[in-house]
């Protein structure tokens, strides 16, 4: 794989987040080993309780205080560990080199200030632009395809539609030309036709800026469209990761395959959808052994008692009896 020849932009090593400093407190996420290379889009997929949002927040240390004390492992960015950085350095990196956009644009935008005001605030911190702040703000809005950008500068967030607000959030997130953009369900609250255009825009911006993206979502359609690599999370752990085509065509984990099978498509309507029995465990009641075993059609004795480890390779899986192994054994 070409990406293995260059060092990764960001490398997470054995990252975990507990509900507190005590080693016995339940872990929201654990044993996270994840690398992101420059320019690539990594999709982080999971359901409730998978920990995908916690992971995104942990990367930039935006966790609430209680969880911050339970943070462990290393997040290496350009040779330094983000988790051990001092406040000054962290502030410089956040928003500058690693930026984030969230699900609800109203949570990211201050309702009191005009969007021109909020854009200029971000632009002021980036000294490398040319032209006045006003010109740069207009250019930023144009880059996210907002029509009549000059007029929009004086709008307040509530005067714009959800899709436009999210674009403004994108423009603000990109004002300082970050090298990594973390997008946490950025299109979940948008209408589908607006989502389509927004994703198109993100792809375009990414290509132009050579930016890497960590795309957190629960929607496989979005993953298929946007991502180069996919990381599947379940109950706080990575259960499978690999190139996007491998994950979709040759999933190795029973959960991944069952999940893919359970999604309806427009192409045909079966009589019933394949389902996974039960529901994802909460932090409090995770089973022993493999966390998926109570819902797995292939659970064996070993799965009930021993936690599987994530194997190596470009398409890795955390399973004692992964799907491809079963086939090759036969």
């Amino acid at each position, binding site marked *: 794989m070409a990406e293995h020849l260059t060092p990764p932009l960001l490398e997470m090593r054995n990252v975990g987040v507990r509900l507190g400093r005590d080693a016995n407190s339940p872990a929201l996420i654990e044993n996270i080993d994840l690398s992101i290379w420059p320019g690539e889009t990594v999709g982080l997929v999971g359901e*409730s*309780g998978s920990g995908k*949002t*916690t992971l995104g927040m942990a990367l930039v240390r935006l966790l609430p205080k209680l969880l911050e004390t339970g943070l462990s492992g290393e997040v290496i960015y350009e040779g330094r560990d983000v988790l051990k950085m001092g406040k000054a350095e962290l502030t410089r990196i956040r928003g500058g080199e690693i930026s984030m956009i969230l699900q609800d644009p109203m949570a990211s935008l201050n309702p009191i200030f005009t969007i021109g005001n909020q854009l200029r605030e971000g632009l002021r911190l980036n000294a490398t632009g040319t032209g006045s702040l006003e010109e740069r703000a207009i250019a930023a809005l144009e880059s996210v395809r907002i029509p009549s950008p000059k007029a929009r500068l004086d709008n307040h967030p509530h005067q714009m539609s959800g899709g436009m607000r999210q674009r403004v959030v994108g423009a603000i997130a990109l004002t300082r030309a970050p090298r990594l953009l973390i997008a946490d369900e950025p299109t979940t609250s948008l209408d589908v036709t607006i989502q389509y255009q927004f994703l198109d825009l993100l792809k375009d911006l990414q290509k132009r800026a050579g930016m890497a993206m960590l795309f957190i979502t629960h929607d496989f359609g979005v993953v298929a469209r946007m991502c180069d690599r996919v990381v599947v999370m379940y109950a706080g752990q990575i259960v499978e990761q690999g190139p996007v085509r491998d994950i979709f065509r040759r999933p190795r984990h029973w959960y991944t395959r069952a999940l893919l099978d359970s999604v309806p498509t427009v192409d045909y309507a079966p009589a019933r959808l394949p389902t996974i029995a039960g529901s994802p465990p*909460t*932090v409090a009641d995770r089973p022993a052994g493999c966390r998926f075993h109570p819902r797995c059609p292939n659970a064996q004795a070993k799965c009930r008692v021993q936690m599987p480890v994530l194997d190596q390779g470009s398409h890795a899986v955390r399973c004692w009896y992964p799907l491809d192994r079963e086939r090759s054994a036969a």
Partner: protein
Amino acid sequence: MSELTSGSPPRRQIVRPLIAFWHSLDWPLRVAVGILLVFVIVALLGPMIAPHDPLKGSLRARLLPPAWQEGGQWEYVFGTDRLGRDILSRIIAGARISLTVCVLVIAIAGTIGTAVGTIAGYFGGWADRVLMRLVDLALSLPVILLALLLGAISGPSFANIIIVISLTLWSQYARMARGETLKIRNEDYVDLARTSGLSDLRIIVRHIMPNIAPALIVIATLQVGVVIVLEASLSFLGVGVPPPAPSWGSMVADGRSYIASAWWLCMVPGMAILITVMAVNLLGDALTDRINPALRGRNI
């Protein structure tokens, strides 16, 4: 994020939340709860624990200072008034009066106010506008003047004081009930009750009332202090509980002219009012903090 839920039935179990509430209080608040319990018990037991008859005085024992002062006697712990009546027994009887007024006022004002507010919030439209104008009117009534007026017309009476204080306070319930009702009537389960064919009255009783109850309980608690002070003030002015009933307010009034010489005539009932109302307010604040997030029955 994962749900950190633990299921516990919100309504029927009153004991467990109370115990949890007690544990969540810091010491000043626990003292407040203690004081209120004492107040209620004293009020309820009343004449049974009073050492003397609050209405009968002994002219030989006039204006005795409290027991720990020079000239005081332990038979009359807090001293006696100008007619020789035991202050402690009068305080105890006064507690009973205050509690009675509180219960009656809150019952009357609470019922009327909640009904008005709920109807205004649920039905909206002209009912809302009319009823809320009524509330505005009630809020602009000057309590003291009204009481004085009524007192002048028909003389001080127990009924008067109940009516006047209720008239002042019902609008607070109405406002709160309306606000809470507005929050709830747009919830899906209210729509679902309508699609099940339930009448509006049934919906209000079965769905709206239980869900707005916590907020109203907080109001009621905070109002106890207000009622006590109002009653005391009105009695002090002479238009409250008629003499010789030992309302704390009228006790303070009686002792006015003796402040320099027999300070205990004012101070003791004054302190009783102060301590009780402070305790109520502390408790009410504590409840307010807890009622809104915790008892909603939702996952956080």
